[in-house]
């Protein structure tokens, strides 16, 4: 098991269980609704309120400014590289882990869980210590004129580190619960491994895969700590959207900071909606084959 969220629950409520007295019911409902509104929803709304505090024009100006545009481009580029890498890894790793038994499997799963449990600062630092100027590979990289830290490769590496568990963690339990019977049947009927994967396994896990990709992408675009350590904060060059928002915020340029942050808030909303739609429509195909 892992440090990971299970899916939102799609099952019905226990209607019979609703025998709490009216007073209890109302106070519990009011308390939890109030809490959710004030503590969870209000921060999200605050992003948009602060971004639009001086009207729509400064908001648009902050987003259309060259440094902001370059941050958006960089974020999209980083996600476009790291998400596909992690899809491939996720599929490959879950094939090995879910379809076969081997020694060291628990260790492999622990390694996959690791990014969830270490602080993102560490996730960035390890690459600085490996590839940075004082890192173990630093001198060799400098001789060969390859820059990883404070450049795109470092940002991609840090993002990959933080986000690779999402796809794998989604697929492993799903593929485990589906077993190997269908694949074995396909192989016996003469399909090769590749055909079996594309025609049997992938259709069975496609919604789970999409679910993992959604979460992976949201985290890839929003990652702050790890990317902050390896990026070097070069304005217009190595700043992603969250880093650009941070710089503006630290310059007390709050409207612009929240305007840039609102892009990420929108991304979070879209992710949440897409995730919920997947859970509502394909909940049975996402769940790991019945409750534990």
């Amino acid at each position: 098991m892992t440090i990971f969220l299970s899916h939102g629950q799609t099952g019905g409520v226990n209607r019979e269980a609703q025998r709490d007295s009216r007073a209890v019911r109302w106070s519990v409902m009011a308390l939890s609704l109030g809490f959710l509104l004030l503590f969870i929803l209000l921060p999200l709304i605050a992003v948009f309120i602060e971004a639009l505090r001086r009207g729509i024009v400064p908001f648009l100006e902050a987003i259309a400014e060259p440094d902001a545009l370059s941050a958006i481009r960089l974020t999209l580029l980083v996600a476009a590289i790291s998400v596909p890498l992690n899809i491939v890894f996720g599929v490959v790793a879950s094939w090995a882990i879910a379809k076969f038994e081997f020694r060291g499997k628990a260790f492999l799963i622990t390694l996959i869980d690791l990014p969830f449990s270490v602080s993102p600062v560490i996730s960035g630092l390890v690459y600085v210590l490996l590839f940075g100027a004082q890192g173990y590979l630093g001198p060799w990289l400098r001789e060969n004129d390859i820059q990883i830290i404070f450049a795109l490769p470092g940002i991609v590496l840090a993002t990959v580190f933080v986000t690779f568990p999402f796809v794998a963690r989604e697929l492993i339990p799903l593929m485990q619960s589906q077993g190997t019977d269908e694949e074995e049947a396909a192989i016996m009927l003469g399909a090769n491994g590749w055909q079996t994967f594309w025609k049997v396994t992938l259709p069975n896990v496609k919604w789970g895969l999409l679910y993992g990709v959604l979460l992976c992408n949201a985290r890839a675009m929003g990652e702050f700590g790890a990317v902050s350590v390896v990026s070097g904060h070069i304005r217009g060059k190595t700043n992603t959207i969250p880093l650009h928002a941070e710089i503006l915020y630290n310059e007390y340029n709050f409207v612009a900071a929240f305007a840039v942050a609102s892009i990420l808030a929108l991304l979070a909303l879209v992710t949440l909606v897409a995730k919920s739609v997947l859970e509502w429509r394909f909940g049975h195909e996402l769940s790991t084959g019945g409750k534990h």
Partner: protein
Amino acid sequence: MIGLSSLPSGRAAAPAPSRRRRQRRALPGFGLTLGLSATYLGVIVLLPIAALLLHAASLSPAEFWAIVSSRRAVATYRITLSSAFYATLFNAGFGLLLAWVLVRYDFTGRRLLDAMIDLPFALPTAVAGIALTALFARNGIFGQWLEPMGIKIAYAQPGIVIAMAFTSLPFVVRTIQPVLEDLEVEIEEAGHMLGATDGQLFARVIWPVLMPSFLAGASLAFARSLGEFGAVVFIAGNLPMRTEITALLTYIRIDEYDYPAAAALATVILLSAFVMLFAVNALQLWQLRYMRRS
């Protein structure tokens, strides 16, 4: 099923017939997929972490100890641990309440509420950090009421607790929810008919079943809170000895190019993360066994 790797390595050693059958039944691609995953994990995770540990090991034990036991560092451990503890306490209460409402009550908008629980998970932590700061700073929606009452949240330790609580709330709710759903109502009703009060029912029937997952969820939230960075740095104020978390001190050392110190602090964080991971896994195993038994 016996996998390929557990078979004797020498194929010429003529495996027993049953084994040969199993071997033929196995799907293709084991070597390829395991090799690729191991390589990927090796390059992305193991090699960089080895670099970190090597850096930390290049310090003499005395130097290492001086860094990780300095007054400033110890203050960050105290602040990080106590804030994560309070955030977990906060979430244990509200998480249980939310899970209860989502499972036990039927009302319009229940699904919307359910989806909202994951917002802290989807919202980038830096965005959560500046948004919470905007709400709790002196001129914010909450801050303007709380600060005149003498309650300072932003730029003080309660701010760290709030940021950690925000980002780790989903873990508690999502761990408790499935267990609550599986709870058999008949037992409760039987208890009720036998004359048990609501309080007795909760203490004797619901709580014993719920407790393992409650603990597992709380430990997940605690682990997440220990690692939180993005949301915390904006709201904490980051005063050394007062509102500085360990991850931030590490970050400052990196910024100063003091890599040995950063590596030493990072080793402490990494080790505590491993301990947490182990504890969480143990709790979750216990929870699973508990659920199967009931």
